[in-house]
C-alpha cells in the first residue's frame, strides 16, 4: 500500500517536472525556468549527500568541495578555450563530451583521495576531517589567481556545446539537467535496494558486526563516498554551465551546511525527501522574504535567515522525519 502510494507520488512529481516549462511559459513566468533548473541541479547534489548521510550514516561536512571540482573542471576548460592557451600541454575545450566526463572523472578522483583518508576516522572526527578537506579545496580555489581567485570567473564562451542539443536555450538546458537528475535518481534508487545498499544499511547500524562477518566496511564506505562525490561533481558541472560562472563560493563550508539542511528538511534516507527539501529550501529563499514583507515585518525580509534559523532548529528537534514524513506518515 505504502509502496504504490510512494510510486504514484514519484510519477506525479516527475510528470510535474516534465511539463513545468510549458506551464511556466504559458503563464508568462518563463523567468522561473532558471529557478527550476537550479532546483533540479541542486537536487542531484542533495540526493548524492543523502546516500552518505541517510544510507551509510556518514555525516560528510565537506560535500560542497566536489561541487567545486566539477564546476572548476568545466570553468577551467572553458577558460583555456577562450584564451586559446594550454594547461600542462592540453588545450581547453567547450565540448560537453569532453568537459562533463572529465568533470565526473576528476570529482571521482578527488572523492577517492578524500574518502580514502577521511574514512580512516569515525564519528565526530569524520565530520571535522571532511570539513577540513572542504576548506582545503576552498582555499585551493581561492588561490587560483589565474582563474579569478576570490572573485571566480565568468565563462565568456557560454555553456558547453553538444551535438544535436543547444544548451544555451534555457528550455533545452532544463531538460538536459532533468535527464541527468532522473538518471542519477534512478541509479541511486537501484543502488540502495541492491545488495550493496543492504551493506550500507548494516554499516549504518553497526560497522563492527559487519566486519566480523567478513565484509570489508571500509571498502564499501569508500565506494559510496566516491559515488556521492561523482553525484556532487555532476551537479557542480551542471551548475557551472547554468550560471556560466564559477567561484570558490560554491565550495564554501556554509554551502555544505545548506546541503545537509536540505537533506534533513526533506527527510534523510529516503532519496525523494532531499529533492523535496531542495524544493522547500529554494522556495523559502525566494519567498520567505516576500511572506515576511507581506506580514508587515519589512525589517526581517532582508534578514530572512533570522526567521529561518529558528524554524530549522524546530525541525531538527521535533520533526526529524522531514517533509517526507509529513507526506508518508508511518502508520505503525
Amino acid at each position: 500500500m505504502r509502496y504504490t502510494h510512494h510510486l504514484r507520488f514519484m510519477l506525479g512529481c516527475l510528470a510535474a517536472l516534465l511539463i513545468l516549462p510549458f506551464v511556466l511559459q504559458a503563464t508568462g513566468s518563463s523567468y522561473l525556468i532558471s529557478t527550476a533548473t537550479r532546483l533540479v541541479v541542486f537536487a542531484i547534489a542533495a540526493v548524492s549527500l543523502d546516500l552518505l548521510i541517510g544510507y551509510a550514516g556518514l555525516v560528510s561536512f565537506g560535500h560542497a568541495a566536489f561541487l567545486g571540482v566539477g564546476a572548476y573542471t568545466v570553468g577551467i576548460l572553458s577558460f583555456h578555450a577562450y584564451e586559446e592557451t594550454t594547461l600542462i600541454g592540453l588545450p581547453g575545450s567547450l565540448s560537453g563530451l569532453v568537459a562533463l566526463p572529465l568533470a565526473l572523472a576528476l570529482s571521482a578522483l578527488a572523492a577517492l583521495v578524500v574518502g580514502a583518508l577521511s574514512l580512516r576516522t569515525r564519528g565526530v572526527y569524520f565530520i571535522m576531517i571532511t570539513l577540513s578537506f572542504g576548506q582545503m579545496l576552498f582555499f585551493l580555489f581561492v588561490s587560483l589567481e589565474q582563474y579569478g581567485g576570490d572573485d571566480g570567473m565568468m565563462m565568456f564562451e557560454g555553456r558547453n556545446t553538444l551535438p544535436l542539443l543547444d544548451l544555451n536555450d534555457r528550455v533545452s538546458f532544463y531538460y538536459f539537467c532533468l535527464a541527468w537528475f532522473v538518471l542519477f535518481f534512478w541509479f541511486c534508487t537501484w543502488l540502495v535496494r541492491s545488495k550493496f545498499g543492504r551493506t550500507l544499511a548494516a554499516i549504518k547500524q553497526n560497522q563492527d558486526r559487519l566486519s566480523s562477518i567478513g565484509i570489508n566496511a571500509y571498502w564499501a564506505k569508500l565506494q559510496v563516498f566516491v559515488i556521492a562525490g561523482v553525484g556532487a561533481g555532476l551537479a557542480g558541472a551542471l551548475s557551472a554551465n547554468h550560471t556560466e560562472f564559477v567561484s570558490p563560493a560554491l565550495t564554501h563550508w556554509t554551502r555544505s551546511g545548506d546541503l545537509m539542511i536540505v537533506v534533513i528538511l526533506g527527510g534523510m534516507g529516503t532519496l525523494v525527501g532531499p529533492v523535496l527539501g531542495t524544493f522547500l529550501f529554494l522556495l523559502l529563499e525566494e519567498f520567505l522574504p516576500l511572506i515576511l514583507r507581506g506580514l508587515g515585518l519589512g525589517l526581517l525580509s532582508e534578514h530572512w535567515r533570522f526567521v529561518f534559523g529558528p524554524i530549522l532548529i524546530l525541525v531538527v528537534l521535533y520533526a526529524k522525519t522531514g517533509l517526507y514524513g509529513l507526506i508518508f506518515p508511518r502508520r505503525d
Partner: protein
Amino acid sequence: MSQLFLEQLLNGVQLGMFLFLVSAGLTLVFGFMNIINLAHGSLFMIGAYAMALIGGVTGSFLAALVLSVPVVACAAWVIEIVIIRRLHARDHLDQVLATFALILFINEGTTMLFGRVPLFLDVPESLSGTVTLPGGVTYPLYRVAIIGAGLAVALALWLIIARTRVGMQIRAGTTNRETVEQLGVNIDRLNTLIFVVGAMFAGLAGALAGPLTSVEVGMGENLLILCFVCVVIGGIGSIRGAMLGAITVGVVDTMGRAFVPDILGRFLDPATASGISAGLSSMSIYLLMVVVLVFRPTGLFPVARSV
C-alpha cells in the same frame, strides 16, 4: 632575518593563544557533554561586539573587557538552556544542524543590530607601546599581554581540572558519564557550568581580538574551523591537546604565510611562486591535520572514553 623570524614566531604563538581560548571551550563541551557546537564561534563574535559596544559607551578598555565576558556568559547560559540541553541525547548530525541554524540566527541578528560595516577598535593607550624582549627584539605590548592572558587562563584551567573537586568530576564525566551520574553528581548543573565557562573563554578571546582585527559578522566561523583543526590534532576532550594543537596551528599558519613565498621564490619564478604559496600556506594547517589523523586517527592526546 632573526628579528623577523622571532616576530613571526611570536605572532604565531599569539594566534595560538586565541585559538586555545576558543578551543578549550570547544574541547571541554565535546569531551564532557559529547556535543559538537558549531555556534561556539558565535560566542567569540558576541564577545567582540560586546567589547566594541561597551567600550564605545564607557570609553574604558578595562571596563569593557570586564563587562563583556559576563555578557557572553549570559548569552551562553540562555543558549544552553534553550537548545544545547535538548541535544544531549541526539546524534552528531542533529547537533551540527541545530548549531548551524543557531549560527544563521545569531549572525543575521547581529547584522540587524550592527549592520554589515566592520567595527574597528583601538588598542588601549596603556598597552599601545612596544617592549624590547631579551635579544633586542621589539614587539607590540598588546600582543605580549594577550600571550600572557592566554597562558594565565591555561594555567588556571589546568589547576581547576587537575586539582579541584569539580575538575575531578569533569575528568570522570568525560570518561564515563553514567557512572558519575549514578554517584550522585548533578550532571545537568555541571553541563551548564562547563558550557558557560567555555563560552566565557571564547568571549574573552573575542573581546581581546577586537583591537587586532576588524569586528564583523562571520569572524567567529573562520576562527572556529581553525579551532576544530586544533581540537582534532590535539585529541577531542584533552585540554593539553588543545593547547598543543593551538600553538602548532598558530605557528604553522603564521610562519607559512610569512616564509613560504620566500622559500619557494628561490626555486621558482616569482609569479608561479606567489600563486602556489598563497594556496599552500592557507592549506598548510589542513594538510597538517590530515597527516596527524592518518597516523593517529584520534589525535595526539586521545582521552580515555568508556563509550
